[in-house]
């Protein structure tokens, strides 16, 4: 027997050997027999049954456990109605762009040609070859729509679970904080890939349906085969996914700071918009190379022959740096955080 006095000091009044009796089990539980039970006693009880079999089945490999948790995450993400709606919107926009360009191709191409950057040049090519619609759609959506979609999933990743209280049960399972965060990030990257692919495939299908197909004349004037054109679309998808994965790291870091998912999502979107604004202020040109959105549509290089890798290479470096920095922030914050929700 130990009592604690006012100073918090435990006074032991336990005769030797008493601990053993205390630990001898609940045989002396003074409960009267309980009435009928909706909580049924399963013959051979759960613990007994599972115990006899636990040693027989060797513990699943750590790698398999990672895949299982990632599968569970992906299942939640890709079955959640909200996320499916986001993907549906992303798929619909290239259709809209394609139809509009088909109807008003001439004036639009003329107007776009004197627009800034190569985006206009890409748009001007669409009427000549349907494959260009994919490049056009991605360069348009990568500015805001795609980042918003990524923010919705990555910003929700930790904050959503914290807000719902499910985080405490994942962690007592125990998912492991580092492991859970890594799986959540992996899942966010998967969603980035899915979102970019949905846009690319939708644009490809509608582009081929509405515009001529065939060998492509690149911005540099050379012509490549249709198959090689598809390959280059694949390269763009990977590049844009890497750019979105960097944003996902930012959103994940913000997600560890709050228990309100909507707050993390909104903060990510606001950060993107503010950065977009900064990137058109000429006085801040020294800052521009360090801004993430600046590099998102740096994939014109694939439309040259040979592929101009310099700009994309730099872009990938920036993406890697953002991922590393914000990934570390997310990790430091999440592993040291008190889970009080």
């Amino acid at each position, binding site marked *: *027997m130990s009592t604690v006095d006012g100073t918090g000091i435990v006074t032991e009044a336990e005769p030797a050997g008493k601990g053993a009796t205390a630990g*001898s089990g609940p045989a002396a*539980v003074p409960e009267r027999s309980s009435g009928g039970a909706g909580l049924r006693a399963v013959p051979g009880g759960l613990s007994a049954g*599972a115990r006899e079999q636990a040693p027989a089945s060797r513990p*699943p490999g750590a790698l398999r456990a990672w895949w299982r948790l990632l599968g569970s995450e992906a299942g939640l993400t890709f079955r959640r109605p909200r996320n499916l709606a986001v993907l549906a919107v992303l798929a619909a926009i290239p259709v809209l762009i394609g139809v509009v360009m088909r109807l008003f191709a001439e004036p639009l191409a003329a107007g776009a040609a004197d627009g800034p950057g190569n985006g206009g040049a890409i748009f001007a090519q669409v009427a000549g070859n349907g494959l260009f619609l994919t490049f056009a759609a991605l360069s348009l959506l990568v500015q805001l729509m795609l980042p918003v979609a990524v923010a919705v999933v990555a910003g929700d990743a930790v904050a959503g679970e914290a807000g719902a209280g499910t985080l405490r049960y994942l962690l*007592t*399972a125990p998912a492991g904080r580092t492991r859970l965060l890594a799986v959540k990030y992996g899942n966010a990257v998967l969603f980035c890939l899915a979102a970019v692919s949905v846009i690319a495939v939708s644009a490809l299908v509608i582009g081929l349906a509405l515009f001529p197909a065939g060998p492509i004349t690149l911005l540099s004037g050379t012509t490549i085969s249709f198959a090689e054109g598809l390959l280059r679309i694949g390269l763009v998808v990977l590049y844009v996914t890497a750019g979105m994965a960097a944003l996902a790291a930012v959103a994940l870091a913000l997600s560890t700071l709050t228990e309100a998912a909507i707050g993390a999502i909104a903060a990510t979107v606001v950060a993107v918009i503010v950065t977009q604004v900064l990137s058109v202020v000429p006085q801040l040109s020294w800052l521009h190379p360090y801004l993430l959105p600046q590099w998102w549509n740096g994939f014109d290089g694939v439309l040259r022959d040979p592929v101009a890798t310099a700009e994309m290479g730099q872009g990938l470096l920036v993406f890697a740096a953002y991922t590393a920095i914000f990934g570390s922030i997310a990790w430091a914050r999440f592993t040291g955080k008190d889970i009080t929700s």
Partner: protein
Amino acid sequence: MTTGAGDHSIVTRGLTKRFRGGQVAVDDLHLSVPRGSVFGFLGPNGSGKTTTIRMLLGLVTPTGGAWELLGAPMPGGIPAALPRVGALVEGPAFYPYLSGEANLRRYDAADPAADPRTASRRIALALERVGLSAAARKRYRAYSLGMRQRLAIAAALLGPRELLVLDEPTNGLDPQGTREVRALVKEIAADGTTVFVSSHLLAEVEQMCTHLGVMRTGRLVAQGSLAELRELNAGETAVVRVETPDTAEAASVLAGLGLAGVRTGDGEAGAELGAVAPERITAALVAAGVAVRGLAVRRPSLEDVFVGLTGEGFDVDG
């Protein structure tokens, strides 16, 4: 203090949590939960029960002290110990758009020690144990309060557990459900699983516990087996109360029998029982012609110990 490597499921040494803002939720806690016991963790609202449980499970980092779970020093032992611990912390939390079954599968996937090949069987068994088999495919959103609580208990029973940590498991349950949870806890304990169950009501857990720990404003004011806690007020004797219109005569009979602390009230007389047998008092009263309407002996109960330790006040501390 016991080291408790083998014979204790939970041992804490000076566990303390001071939240940012200065609130000391748990103060210098020395808990010893014997293996195989059903340990009732009692305390009024805000006394630090949930904060203690969060610290034990590694959700909240203590600002002081150390603790062991199933013999593993924490927090380093989390991966080794927690798969053998089932937990219900501050009520159920699930994904509303998933079914009860899919929710359990989700939590099972988070446990790296859980075997995916036996998942379906373990989930079905856990649901059956809490009487939710029929509602397994229903969306969690459509569950009633009691069904949600049951699902949370099922989640704690997903694997073979050596320790169950249940934070107010009967919250939101009807009296029938409360009885069922008690029966379930008893049954689990009979398998040798240690159960650590928190409550703010002694009556809820007294019938199933072998041991108790009592919290008050973040401090552990007592712990031990039920018998040990009863001894805490062994000094207080039983009292006898006689209901009668003849209070003066009754009082003189009681005094004549040598009882101490004789007093009279409105229609009653009372005294400390001491070593006198109650039947002797009855006989003496009748022999003296006192009109006895009722005679009651009140012995100090565990409830008195609990109230004495935590106070009777309605106000939340801290």
